[in-house]
């Protein structure tokens, strides 16, 4: 620390003792929970943002099953509903995030208000991600209920169903890193809103509609390097195959790879945003 200069002659000889600030660092966990709590309150006041992740998975499930189930049955795939349930849960949880709220905070000055406090800077990001996870966990319930209604059964039982939700939440958490990276880096609502377009190559250049073995040419090659293909593999194995190690391991590696890249970008964007340079 640079040496403090000498005191100066007083111009306020009757100055009162300075008030003692009550502030102290709250601690990392409390900071994360405080930020998460705020995000959840915001989400509660914007219920309209939750309609798409509830409605769209049901819509796609109905369309895919209604139009393709008999065709796949003729091709020898007899559990098409079980094949499609992972698609529904992935559509339900992918990109559900409070990241756009970060842009609003930056634009209206509230982010500066947070930075003026002694809050742990990483907690600003992790708190919002914790809120995202809580919201996404709730969004898996309608998908599971729909699966049960149409007769999809987990050969792995209730533990497998919980693992199924766990894989979906892990995928969701890994993916939102990209959205936070864009929101924090650009602070631009239009650019942040357009990141939903990333969802399409991830979902439709993978095994969303047909197994990879049924694909040919470039589509099979692209699906082979799309991490979502392996996430689907892990999810489907929990419904149909049991506790198969290989697809679960591949799914874990795919999620970890996406998470590593996305969260590194998000962390760098946060560091840039909170840097005082």
């Amino acid at each position, binding site marked *: *620390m*640079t*040496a*403090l*200069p*000498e*005191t*100066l*002659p*007083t*111009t*306020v*000889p009757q*100055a*009162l*003792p*300075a*008030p*003692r*600030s*009550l*502030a*102290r*660092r*709250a*601690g990392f966990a*409390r*900071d994360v929970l*405080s930020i998460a*709590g*705020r995000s959840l*309150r*915001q989400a509660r*006041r*914007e219920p309209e943002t939750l309609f798409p992740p509830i409605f769209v998975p049901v819509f796609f499930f109905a369309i895919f099953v209604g139009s393709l189930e008999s065709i796949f049955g003729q091709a020898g795939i007899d559990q098409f509903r079980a094949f499609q349930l992972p698609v529904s849960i992935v559509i339900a949880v992918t990109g559900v995030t409070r990241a756009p709220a970060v842009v*609003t*905070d930056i634009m*209206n*000055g*509230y982010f*500066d*208000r*947070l*930075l*003026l*406090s*002694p*809050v742990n800077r990483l907690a600003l990001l992790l708190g919002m991600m914790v809120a995202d996870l809580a919201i996404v966990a709730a969004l898996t319930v309608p998908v599971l209920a729909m699966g049960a209604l149409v007769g999809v059964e987990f050969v792995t039982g209730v533990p497998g169903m919980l693992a199924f939700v766990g894989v979906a939440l892990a995928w969701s958490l890994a993916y939102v890193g990209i959205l936070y990276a864009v929101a924090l880096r650009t602070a631009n609502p239009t650019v942040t809103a357009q990141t939903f377009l990333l969802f399409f190559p991830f979902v439709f250049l993978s095994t969303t509609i047909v197994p990879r073995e049924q694909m040919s040419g470039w589509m099979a090659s692209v699906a082979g390097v799309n991490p979502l293909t392996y996430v689907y593999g892990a999810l489907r194995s929990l419904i149909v195959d049991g506790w198969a190690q290989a697809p679960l391991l591949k799914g874990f590696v795919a999620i970890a790879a996406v998470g590593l890249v996305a969260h590194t970008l998000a962390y760098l964007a946060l560091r840039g945003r909170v840097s*005082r*340079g």
Partner: protein
Amino acid sequence: MDPRVAVSPQLSGGLVAPAIIARDLRRRFGDKTAVDGVDLQVPAGQIYGFLGANGAGKSTTVRMLCALLTPSAGSAWVAGHDVATDPIGVHLAIGAALQATAIDDKQTGLEHLELQGRLYGLRRREISRRIAELSELIDLGDALRRPAGSYSGGMKRRLDLALALIHNPSVLFLDEPTTGLDPVSRFALWDEVRRLNRERGTTVFLTTQYLEEADELAERVGIIARGRLVVEDTPDALKRRVGADMVVARVDGDTEVAVRALRALPEVESVDVAASEITARVGDGPTAVTPVALALSGAGVPVESLTLRRPTLDDVFLAVTGRRMAGVEAGEELATTGGASR
């Protein structure tokens, strides 16, 4: 010196530790220099007014002192904490209401205050007590439980100030706190700033474009122009520097002719021009009014009005920056003589 000494205001020998110190503080953004070597010291317990037009460097200086922005050069300490190396120490000691009212429209006023209290590490009881203490300032009544998106500008400003005060900071930064407020809300906020300073000894660093605000509140005023602190003193001392009295003539004619006529008078110390308004600084106003009127009449310059008044901070601002603050506030680029003093 132990930096903690600086938060203890009364030292031996009649010395007061500065709450804020800036030494050759500079900030560049690319090729542009926003703050160009600001030196200032604010003793603990003082209200310091930082005056400047838009773009003069006020907010950049505040952001550096609040440890939101690293200085490009120079150094600063707030409440004994180095803004460059101990930003969290600064944040724990200060409260700030920055230029943009930092309110989340989705949260209620109460949720704002509770969250702010938690982030500053206050316990639940402390938060409740501080909200009760700040309730008079907030003065939102039942609206405190409504989302802030429904608040008026004045209500948001009051909530913003309460957020800055939730942890009872020793130094309070207010960056243009009354911009956009109606007169009633403005006077109420002035009263609150005075009360905080008087009753709690809170040091207040206030930036403003309103000269009246600085005159009313500040014990000491610094004027910043083009990133430099051009003058600093008590409001009365600054006004005395300008001259004892001012004779202001609004003319409808050639101002250059009028200026020449006035400069020839022995009673006139200097002359400034802003648009059609000519300000003559004189030693003794009552005896100078008649010669000024006769000189303008003799020069053939029609006079619309002639006023005798004491110097204001606006006159100080004109003298040190070459432009009138009031015109800058209104977005009006005034034609000035650029310090056309004799």
